[in-house]
């Protein structure tokens, strides 16, 4: 751990992961239910507002700390880790881009601290082909009462039924181009959320992410004052890729730990006999270490740029770098889980043994879909035509 990690917060997260997330993980997965106990415990430890700056009452924690928390939670319950990660991404966007003297956002961040608000995002939209950089929905002109509104049809809203507020991407104005977007933060009581469809997915079942038609009424100061393209480049995209990949690393690490426990148990039963699974475990460890290296290095690189030369975050070479983190980690994590299954064999395949890794594999398989890797490759292919040093 680096000096920038708040060990007290990480310790608290580890306790929550072990004492609360782990014992509920099987039920959360089986019933596709929200990990409410875990989120309640995170609220109790004031972890939902950890990223909020000290001057607004938060802990002013570093991204390194948040990444470590994501890892600890993901290790015990992938869905809990992902809910926490996604919430922190919305907080990071507000902290970074609210602008100086933005009273509404400063007040709202104080409220996140006082009330431990949980914030979801509404970024995907029906009709955009999965491109987060485009919107159909738009902010309306302000009415005579000064309020603006939007209506957005979202195919998935992670923990939508459980969030207190939503950060939504929409076009800046009714006549704005699809890529001319802003981000709006609205409270649940300013919104109507009409559920669309069901939530019965392969993995990450506890994130409870059905579709919604979201409508909202809000005042102009609830719109973050910079273009969403800037928010996305400097904060949302790299922070998402970093925090998600720490969740995936947590999942893969637990799959490895289970494979290792399996091999140790087998070695005890037959001391001195050759153990093919032990060789596979060693191979698995090298796969896990590749994942760990990429995830850890990307975190350090981002934190250095964020603290130093923030303008560099918008450069194409940097965008390529953090896109690569997402692609690499989202492919490596399920690979580690699948090979852990190979080590454990049938007791790993069964859902009710200490060596079960089915949930890990299913959770990790969601990684490549969270902003589809094919889409990221298409972006990267285009950027590679022009970027110089990558």
């Amino acid at each position, binding site marked *: 751990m680096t000096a920038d990690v708040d060990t007290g917060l990480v310790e608290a997260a580890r306790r929550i992961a072990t004492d609360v997330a782990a014992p509920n993980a099987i039920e959360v997965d089986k019933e596709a239910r929200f990990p409410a106990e875990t989120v309640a415990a995170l609220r109790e430890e004031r972890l939902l507002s950890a990223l909020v700056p000290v001057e607004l009452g938060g802990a002013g924690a570093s991204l390194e700390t948040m990444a470590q928390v994501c890892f600890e939670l993901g290790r015990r319950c992938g869905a809990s880790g992902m809910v926490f990660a996604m919430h922190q991404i919305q907080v990071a966007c507000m902290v970074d881009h609210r602008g100086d003297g933005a009273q509404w956002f400063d007040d709202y961040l104080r409220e996140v601290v006082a009330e431990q608000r949980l914030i979801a995002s509404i970024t995907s939209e029906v009709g955009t082909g999965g491109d987060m950089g485009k919107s159909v929905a738009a902010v309306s002109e302000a009415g005579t009462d000064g309020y603006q509104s939007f209506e957005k049809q979202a195919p998935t809203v992670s923990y939508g039924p459980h969030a207190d507020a939503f950060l939504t991407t929409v076009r800046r104005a009714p006549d704005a181009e699809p890529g001319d977007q802003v981000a709006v933060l609205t409270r649940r009581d300013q919104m109507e959320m009409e559920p669309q469809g069901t939530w019965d997915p392969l993995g990450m079942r506890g994130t409870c992410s059905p579709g919604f038609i979201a409508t909202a009424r809000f005042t102009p100061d609830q719109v973050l004052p910079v273009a969403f393209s800037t928010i996305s480049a400097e904060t949302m995209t790299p922070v998402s890729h970093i925090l998600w990949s720490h969740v995936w690393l947590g999942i893969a690490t637990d799959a490895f730990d289970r494979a290792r426990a399996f091999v140790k148990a087998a070695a005890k039963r037959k001391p001195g006999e050759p153990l093919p699974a032990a060789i596979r475990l060693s191979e698995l460890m090298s796969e896990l270490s590749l994942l760990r290296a990429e995830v850890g290095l990307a975190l350090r690189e981002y934190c250095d740029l964020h603290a130093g030369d923030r*303008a560099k975050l918008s450069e194409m070479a940097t965008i390529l770098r953090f896109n690569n983190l997402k692609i690499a980690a989202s492919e490596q994590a399920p690979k580690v889980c699948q090979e852990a299954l190979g080590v454990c064999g049938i007791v790993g395949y069964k859902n009710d043994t200490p060596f079960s890794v089915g949930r890990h594999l299913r959770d990790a398989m969601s990684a490549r879909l969270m902003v589809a890797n094919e889409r990221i490759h298409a972006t990267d292919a285009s950027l590679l035509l022009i970027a110089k040093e990558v």
Partner: protein
Amino acid sequence: MKDRIRQVIKEHGHLSVDPGTLADDADLYQAGMTSHASVNVMIALEDTFDVEFLDSMLKRSVFESIDSISQALTEVGVEA
């Protein structure tokens, strides 16, 4: 130089309006240029003016208007 920039944008920017009608400081993204189209504009600018942009210039804000593009081209040695 700005006429040649307009020509490149016309051919590669896929704007929803004619670049000829745009002010020098108009926001090209607000005029409908996508990220993908902006990369094609960058490549075509390098080709047209026979220059290479620096990595530090390859970002959205540098290509957001005819003014900002002409400033970038000046920085890499194109005469106005």
